[in-house]
């Protein structure tokens, strides 16, 4: 699993970080991002849906927000 740190970045920067990382990896790769912006819980799943990637998990731990996406075939 690839871990991305997007703490202190506000949306859409966590989305851009995820988008750019996804572009580098083959289908099946799991990418987990940590954000301090609660907007990431909506925006990253929305981005993943649009592009056909799979949302594996999203969770909140205190003031941090984690989203895991599996890279799928780009629609």
């Amino acid at each position, binding site marked *: 699993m690839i871990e991305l740190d997007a703490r202190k970045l506000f*949306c859409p920067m966590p989305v851009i970080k995820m988008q750019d990382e996804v572009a580098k990896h083959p289908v099946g790769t799991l990418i987990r991002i940590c954000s301090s912006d609660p*907007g990431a819980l909506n925006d990253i799943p929305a*981005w993943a*849906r649009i592009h056909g990637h799979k949302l594996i998990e999203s969770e909140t731990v205190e003031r941090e927000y984690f989203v895991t996406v599996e890279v799928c075939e780009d629609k």
Partner: protein
Amino acid sequence: MERQRKAVALISGGLDSLLAAKVMLDQGIHVEGINFFTGFCVEGHTHAIRKKDKDKQKRNNALWSAEQLGIKLHIVDIIEEYKDIVINPKHGYGKNLNPCLDCKIFMVKKAYEWIQEHDFDFIITGEVIGQRPMSQRKEILPVVANESGAEDLLLRPLCAKNLPETKVEREGWVDREKLHDFSGRNRKPQMALAKAMNFEDYATPAGGCCFLTDKSYSKKLGDLWEHRGEKKYELDDIMLLKVGRHIRPNERFKMIVSREEGENHFLQGYRKQFDSLQILNFGGPMTLVDGITSDEDCEVAAKIVARYSQGKHEKSVTVEYRRKDGEVFEINVAPFKGDEIPEIWHV
């Protein structure tokens, strides 16, 4: 058989770009969206920072628009390149520090580069003649097409019938008769079209989606440049201009005083980059100091912070002053009364 033509749509998250993209989809065009992040976007950041906004729905409107349309959205970070647009706008600023015309030219230019790299055919925007005073006047729209390099590969579906034919129409890639002739600031035609397209929920940002069109924000940015002696900024600078009360008691320093819990939390993340103050014996705002302070300045800063604390009516309040190099000391001060903080100090 004619191949399906492909267009990239500049998607801001507002109604006009949503409609423009839908008009193209309805003509069988393959549309993908592009959204540029400049660092000056209004919505998400302030909502993410301020606790009072925590109950508001948090969504990126550009992503939301793309999902409604069923298209891909490519979000592009242009923070670094965009600095030159903000600092040296060839066509000047609007009412505030908003370089709207240069901004539009730049974004269309970037979109033009994108379609060349991705083998797309043309660009669409949600521009409407006369909608905005600086960048959407009839005589200005050709300037955007020319200076961006896009020329007649730039189509504005919402007002195309009021403009000369583009290559997109001449070649029959789209049916000009099915495009629109909107003009002016009246939003009713767009709202009617939205209704006809079954869009019931869409963003209607008051005053636009860019902080640079905001008078108060522009004043703070101008103050930053003036006191640094040069027109430069980093992302942290423009983020901090979105937060708190900005108070400049003299030429040596400016204070950023948080207004609520969410801003307190946000400003705490900058304590290693700036001097900071906190009230020790009452509830009070997290405060950053930008500049170099003398002992006398520290006392003035402490009195100001005390004024915005729960101890503002007390005779003495204890303030912790923490320098960014790690030095920490306490100051006991009588809080300023309201009229002891002159209006002119407020940036």
